[in-house]
């Protein structure tokens, strides 16, 4: 997966992060694995309590917007196989 720059800095990682995720590969499971390895990212992509995607964070996979698809939806096979990244981007919201 690919994180936005400010979260790469926070976690101390490079452009791409590889994670081992058991099937079915969903955004929720990818984030579970990400947060387990990098606990400082908890609460920064999805909210505590509700587990919802934070409003200004967007998810893309295989050139499609997955932001509104739901955390439990299965991601494209290319992402599950590690051929394509799950992209997390910050919305262009000024600031």
């Amino acid at each position, binding site marked *: 997966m690919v994180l936005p720059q400010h979260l790469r800095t926070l976690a101390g990682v490079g452009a791409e992060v590889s994670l081992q995720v058991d099937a079915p590969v969903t955004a929720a499971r990818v984030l579970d694995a990400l947060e387990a390895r990098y606990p*400082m990212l908890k609460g920064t*992509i999805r909210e505590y309590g509700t587990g919802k995607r934070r409003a200004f964070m967007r998810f893309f996979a295989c050139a499609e917007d997955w932001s509104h698809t739901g955390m439990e939806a299965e991601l494209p096979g290319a992402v599950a196989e590690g051929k394509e990244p799950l992209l997390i981007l910050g919305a262009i919201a000024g600031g």
Partner: protein
Amino acid sequence: MSRVRVLVGTKKGAFILDSDGMRKDWKVSGPFFAGWEIYHVKGSPVDPNRIYASQSSSWSGQVLQRSDDGGATWAAVGNKFMYEGAPGTHQWYDGTPHPWEFRRVWHLEPSLTDADTVYAGVEDAALFKSTDGGANWDELAGLRGYGAGQDTHAPAWQPGAGGMCLHTIILDPSNAERMYIAISAAGAFRTDDGGKNWKPINKGLVSPFMPNPSAEVGHCVHHVAMHGSRPEVLFMQKHWDVMRSDNAGDTWHEVSGNLPTDFGFAIDVHAHEPETIYVAPIKSDSEHFPLEGKLQVWRSKTGGNEWEALTKGLPQQDCYVNVLRDAMAVDKLDTCGVYFGTTGGQVYASADAGENWAPIVRDLPAVLSVEVQTL
């Protein structure tokens, strides 16, 4: 020789400014957490190497940072701020009920006796406490009336222009059970039992924008300051009016005196003279800049009412910056140093209690907070 370390939070990162006791030559470090809003950075009075920083952004929410080596290195600690029980509602700007939603930490107040204990004032207004160096946070929910006997009228609280923030936390050095907090726009509150029960302490405040200008809650308190040697005396910069209490907030009276405008955000007390106080007057609630483009700190040596302008070294023309509520601080050196930051990115220092000023830095991002450690 003693040293000072100035901790600066800005809209786009944190900075640390170091100097010796002369406070003339400065080393600037940073930005730390570049690109993030740093609402507050504050060191523990027990262990000055222990520093806490509130890091947040609209995109990624709240992160809490901790340093154990005076700001050289940092590590993210706990950022899980969950309201106790059902969060309930407060008033929205239009008076309708609005659910309590956590947004960010405005203010961090390390304990006076334990480096691992720290309080966090958050938006939407609530008070949290950590006893493990910031790893875990629990709400002191009695402030919002949750599970407590006192009615703090929390459903009637409403946000100020900057959000409904708990921005001021003052610990009483003479009484471990007593603490003060302030919320925009609810007012000031006090606990006398370590945070279980709270009561509004706003008698004497008058806010003409309210339907009942003297109501028990609803006042837009901007900041409160106390001198540790006289913890029952409090000074307040309200939305308009500079106020004073001589009885731990039970009653307040106005001490704006001859100030050219009594609107402002910041207020602080001299480190060694408990009757000497400082404010940074701002023109009005719609014009957040100094009067006539002249940046001035005003000082009272009489605990209010009689004020003098301190201008030497400060821009006296074409200056239209603001000084935010947590952006003024004092050091504890013999000749008390006074510091403040501006939304124009300047941090000014005076090594002689306000007589003369010089910028430490001129071009930081907008300054949100300034704290000083005397080492």
